[in-house]
């Protein structure tokens, strides 16, 4: 047990918080867009999926860092 056992979960927590805010904004805008223009739903959905992948990749990087540093815990 050292400081890593606190900082690793905390790091994922903070990045997940940021990703959650970003995903919320993206999904809100996409829903608004679909509500305004239902015929563009397909295109918007594809852009949303790509954008969400970029946003959540940041949390994944934090998780990968946790996997790497897990051995030092």
């Amino acid at each position, binding site marked *: 047990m050292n400081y890593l056992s606190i900082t690793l979960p905390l790091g994922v927590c903070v990045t997940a918080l940021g990703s959650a805010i970003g995903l919320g904004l993206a999904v809100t805008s996409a829903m608004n867009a679909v509500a305004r223009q239902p015929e563009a739903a397909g295109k918007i959905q594809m852009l949303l999926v790509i954008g969400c992948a970029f946003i959540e990749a940041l949390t994944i990087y934090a*998780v990968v860092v946790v996997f*790497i540093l897990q*051995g030092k815990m």
Partner: protein
Amino acid sequence: MQPDTAAAAADLSIELPRLQHVLSGLIPHDLVSFLDVWGGNILALCALILISVLMTRACSRFTEVPGRLQNAVEAVVEAMENILNDILGSSMHEFLPFLGTLFLFIFIMNLTGLIPLLHSPTSQFEIALSLAIVVFCYVQMVAIRKLGLIGYIDHLMSSPRDLVGWLLAPLMLLLHLIAELVRPISLALRLFGNITGEDALIAAFTGLGVLALSGIGSPVGLPLGLPFIFLGMLFGLVQAFVFTILSAVYIAQVLPPEGESHAKNPIKS
């Protein structure tokens, strides 16, 4: 990040038992350690063989009224065509075989982890990275073939045509080169991280289900991992989809502008 570091780190993470560890008393020790290293590659090879056999069988005898297999394969191909048409426009048919195979390959490899005693090959960083490097090389090849070497360097310098453009060209070249080199790493990390995390999630909850009833000496546990298997199926599909779409976007960015279809590409990573 070094691949062997990642592999060592992945070994430390929680996971369900693998086939060779369950059978470790019955098969020689050499085979167990061999499967530990090469198991993912063997599963990936099995996935390739599965796709090849399925597609060959579906395409061997085309009929006017499609049978069940041909119908399913046609549905998949049509869905891919619709999605890629939005990104790549008229040149879509040139890249459909590569991107479609990539999608099916990654999808089947992701789902392999949900079969008991097997694991996802894509949860090994080497395999995810090698897929991303294949995409990187393919994009460079397409770029040089379509634009020519000079044209590609010009594209990397954001096509300078005036004095300000030429002054900024070295900076643009550097930025574009870094962007090109970071792409395979980010593609590989996204796939590897998501699939590893999803497998670890299923393993953690399955372990929790076994732990929950171990106090009363029950031989079986609660199926707590079951809902996460459905989540895993969804994740496997979404990650394969994202990998394919991003590859298509990377290809679309290096295609020469052809009027309308280029303007359809709104993503600039």
